[in-house]
């Protein structure tokens, strides 16, 4: 097990290098650059812009820039932002808690509700509940996240006025947990909606598959009652594909969080990424790409280890 984890960690190094090269190249291929904002400012001369270019190291060839950035990363130095000169890692970590709060709440809520709907749908297949859940999930998956976000703001914030339309705090209420909760409701609802839809469908099919296995019939023939059959026999077997799915779904969850954060003005990593993209903040963009890649790799590794712990047939 340990040697497997070690191997996987080593394998992730070339993967991360590949991701960084592609990310860096794409970033520089995009038109415009971090200095474009200055060209519209009449008080900044061309000489000033050239000087800034040299200071930021943007005058050097792209591969040199990459090597400089990469050698910094290798020693744990994530670089500094172009605007403000703050350490990139610090900026990302500062936003991380907001994103994890949003993502974590949405994911736990979605898995809880989604799995419950899925299990009930599998047990009562083709019932009215199952039909409604299945078509409801189709609807939820057919609309883009931003549309749900805008609708939620329109109804709950503007029409009904129940909840704030965006942000994380009211001014001066930074330590008020109730205020935070009120701000959390809408973005979590919107983000959780799509994940719930996905999870209810996956859970349903995972359970349906398991419930028709021979060993479930054996459990019934032993006289085990329905709850014991479901929890002790079906659940662990159905959990396996779902854990693998969680590892795979992490990137999608990240991009979903990005859209949701942007709509609701949530000061998390998604907003940071969009802002950095607009400003062509290369160091932040690269930092975020690496951070996300790392997160996904670790997530998948954890999923694989969990599956190995669950299933004695899987040898790592």
């Amino acid at each position, binding site marked *: 097990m340990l040697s497997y984890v070690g191997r996987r960690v080593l394998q992730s190094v070339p993967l991360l290098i590949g991701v960084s090269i592609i990310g860096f190249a794409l970033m520089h291929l995009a038109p415009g650059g971090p200095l474009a904002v200055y060209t519209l400012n009449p008080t900044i001369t061309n000489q000033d812009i050239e000087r800034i270019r040299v200071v930021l190291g943007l005058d050097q060839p792209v591969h040199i820039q990459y090597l400089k950035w990469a050698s910094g990363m290798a020693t744990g130095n994530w670089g500094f932002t172009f605007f403000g000169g703050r350490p990139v890692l610090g900026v990302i970590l500062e936003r991380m808690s907001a994103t994890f709060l949003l993502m974590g709440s949405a994911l736990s809520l979605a898995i809880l509700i989604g799995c419950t709907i899925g299990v009930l749908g599998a047990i009562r297949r083709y019932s009215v509940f199952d039909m409604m859940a299945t078509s409801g999930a189709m609807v939820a998956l057919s609309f883009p996240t931003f549309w749900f976000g805008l609708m939620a703001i329109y109804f709950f914030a503007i029409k009904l006025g129940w909840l704030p339309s965006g942000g994380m705090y009211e001014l001066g209420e930074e330590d008020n947990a109730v205020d935070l909760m009120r701000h959390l409701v809408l973005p979590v609802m919107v983000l959780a909606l799509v994940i719930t839809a996905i999870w209810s469908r996956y859970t349903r099919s995972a359970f349906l598959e398991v419930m028709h*296995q*021979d*060993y479930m*019939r*054996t*459990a*019934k*023939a*032993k*006289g*085990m*009652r329905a709850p*014991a059959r479901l929890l*002790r*026999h079906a659940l*662990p*077997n159905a959990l396996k594909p779902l854990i693998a799915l969680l590892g795979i779904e992490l990137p999608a969850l990240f991009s979903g969080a990005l859209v949701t954060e942007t709509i609701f003005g949530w000061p998390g990593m998604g907003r940071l990424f969009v802002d950095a993209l607009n400003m062509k903040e290369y160091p932040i963009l690269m930092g975020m790409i690496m951070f996300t890649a790392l997160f996904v790799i670790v997530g998948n590794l954890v999923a694989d280890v969990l599956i190995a712990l*669950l*299933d*004695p*047939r899987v040898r790592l």
Partner: protein
Amino acid sequence: MEAAPAVLAARNLRVGFRIPGGVMQAVDGVSFELRRGETLGLVGESGSGKTLTSLALLRLLESPPAELSADGIDFEGRDLLGLSEGAMADLRGAGLSMIFQEPMTSLNPLMTIGRQIDEPLVRHLGLSKRVARERTLDLLRRVGIAGPEMAVRQYPHQLSGGMRQRVMIAIALACRPSVLIADEPTTALDVTVQAQILALLRALQEEMGTAILLITHDLAVIAETAHRVAVMYAGRIVETGPVAALFEAPLHPYTEGLLRSIPRITRERGGDLPEIPGVVPAPGALPAGCAFAARCGFAVAECQELRPVLEPMGGGREVACWRPRHG
């Protein structure tokens, strides 16, 4: 043997499936009695309704799609059809057990052997986990698994097919049921392992007095293990009787055909193996008369029109045929 009371009796058992345009009757009025301590072989081709019959007895069929009806399934004086699902679950694995054809997939792959045998002991006998484990070790020893202390910690994939079937037998017999239904228990196993498993079942039966309903398509298994036999064809029992008499002088032309088509070493070389011409009629497309009439060499006009019912023929034998052989 004749005097022993019936522990399990099915009366006019029917299993149907709703299909577009009607009901497909896969088991069509099966009746039999299983007596204390005896082995009744239920034999027939694939699709004759043997497995459905066995699953119906334990009410393990999913309904829908399956529709189960009977005049009664009497088990130790109770009609199983009238029981609630909870009361039925109390009986399964305790008074009535079952082992299945597929030892490879019938055990939960994520659970140790020990836990899977403990389960019915804790569930039905109310034993503590520690006492149940003692019993489990003892059971494993009895079904012939060497090193039970190691086996309880193993997972199904670490055992061979024969070993897994022994574990299934241990699970089924854990609570000393009065009836064991064994659905093709040896079909998926090597011939040598088959013989061991059958011998084990016989030994445990003698020890515990369990009545066994042995379902198989293999006449050799019946000859070796069963006391009485019921031959199924197209969802109905066409002949029953003591094994020796039935094998010696079959009454139904179908039984006769089955017995003749067994390959024998002593048969003359070069000759073709006798077979029954034609195929089993599909359920739902059964003729009005005898289901075997179209394939029968002795059929008369009566056979096409009227369905024969099981009639006593003496010596504990019954046959459903208008023109019984050796009669």
